[in-house]
């Protein structure tokens, strides 16, 4: 077994929370390997389509490969069937692919999938490297989860507005800046709702 792959990276911070009719997702922008930082402007939140956000942590070889594979298959589905996959179907499709790959050639990627569907409304799915899937109100991946889950436990409630959600994200970033060893100067924040996907300033 490739010992390099056995070490699971947890340096990327990906977090997300559900609000009233939207899902807000944030990620740090550092792209690094060992002690070297490649970039501080890496966008880890992929816009899968105009109603879904895919936040991924892990080495880019796996995250890029996996997300592109999923996205192209989703486009193929849309062309063949004249309809988009729902967030629920997408999450389970991803999980199935990850689970199949798990005992063949695993993808080292943690996922947060946030989406808005006309019928189901806002939904957020948490999938980890072992392809465990849970539908959640908020989620975090990486070392950051040790710090931020308690922030969410305290601050999250049903029906947050965009401003309130942004406040919670600010609290998360502040917590990391205080207590997390790895300095993550930049964060990117995106929101998905009935009107599509947009960028939000911290």
């Amino acid at each position: 077994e490739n010992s390099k792959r056995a070490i699971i990276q947890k340096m990327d911070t990906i977090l997300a929370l559900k609000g009233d009719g939207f899902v807000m997702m944030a990620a740090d922008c550092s792209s690094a390997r060992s002690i070297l930082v490649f970039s501080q402007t890496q966008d880890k939140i992929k816009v899968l389509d105009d109603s879904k956000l895919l936040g991924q942590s892990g080495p880019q070889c796996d995250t890029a490969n996996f997300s592109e594979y999923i996205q192209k298959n989703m486009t193929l589905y849309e062309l063949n069937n004249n309809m988009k996959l729902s967030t629920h179907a997408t999450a389970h499709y991803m999980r199935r692919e990850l689970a199949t790959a798990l005992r063949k050639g695993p993808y080292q990627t943690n996922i947060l999938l946030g989406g808005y569907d006309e019928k189901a409304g806002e939904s957020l799915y948490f999938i980890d490297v072992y392809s465990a899937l849970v539908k959640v109100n908020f989620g975090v991946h990486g070392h950051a989860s040790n710090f931020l889950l308690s922030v969410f436990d305290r601050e999250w409630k049903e029906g947050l507005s965009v401003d309130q959600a942004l406040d919670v994200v600010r609290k998360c970033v502040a917590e990391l800046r205080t207590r997390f060893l790895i300095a993550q100067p930049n964060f990117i924040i995106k929101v998905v709702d009935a009107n599509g996907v947009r960028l939000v300033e911290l």
Partner: protein
Amino acid sequence: MARRYDSSTTTFSPDGRLHQVEYAIEAINNAGTAVGILAKDGIVLAGEKNKPSNLLAPSKGPEKMYKIDDHLTTVVAGLTADANILINNARINAQRYIYTYQEPMPVEQLVEKVCNYKQAYTQYGGLRPFGVSFLFAGWDEYHGYQLYMSDPSGNYSGWKATCIGQNNQAGKNLLKNDYEENLTIDAAMKLAVKVLVKSMDATTASADKLEFCIMTTDGDKVIQRIVPEADVTKILEEVALETASEGDM
């Protein structure tokens, strides 16, 4: 004179036809009639059972109706042995979809999958086409109630009401005249009975020769019900009464 080009499915005739496919479609015109009708809040499927001998053991379940999945069912007209292969194929495809997406397969996608499978037998392999036509009835959250007809060529089309099998032309004419949009399930059932009575060989239609399946929903849950023989008898009587007094001024 077209005989030279008949035997192989994978050859066009000089006048651009696939004779084997056309012959397969002909084979179905000898089979028991099946009819499907879209109602306002459901779908009615009905079929004429073939009873070649009194020595035949009574069937344990429906003869022409097959459940593909909880939200999808089909009526068959044609070679039963061929139909079994395709129904198995349809069921596997339906479960494969749930396996991947954790959602019931949209009806048209399932129909297309079965039809693409049928089409292969009209283009490669040197094997004969399937001698079956289907009426697929299903409900999904994207398009509601849907009724599709597919034939041995691998073509399919969506219908509000149609019939296949013996005397289907007579049945279609009746539907053309009597079908209205937004029928209730009961009205659709009566119309289905009328169609079958018209297309059946025997002069007297009886409940033991007919099969009915009603598809409705309760919220997001689809309910499929095979109508018990006693209820079919009742509807037959009601329809007989109505037709008897139809010509009265």
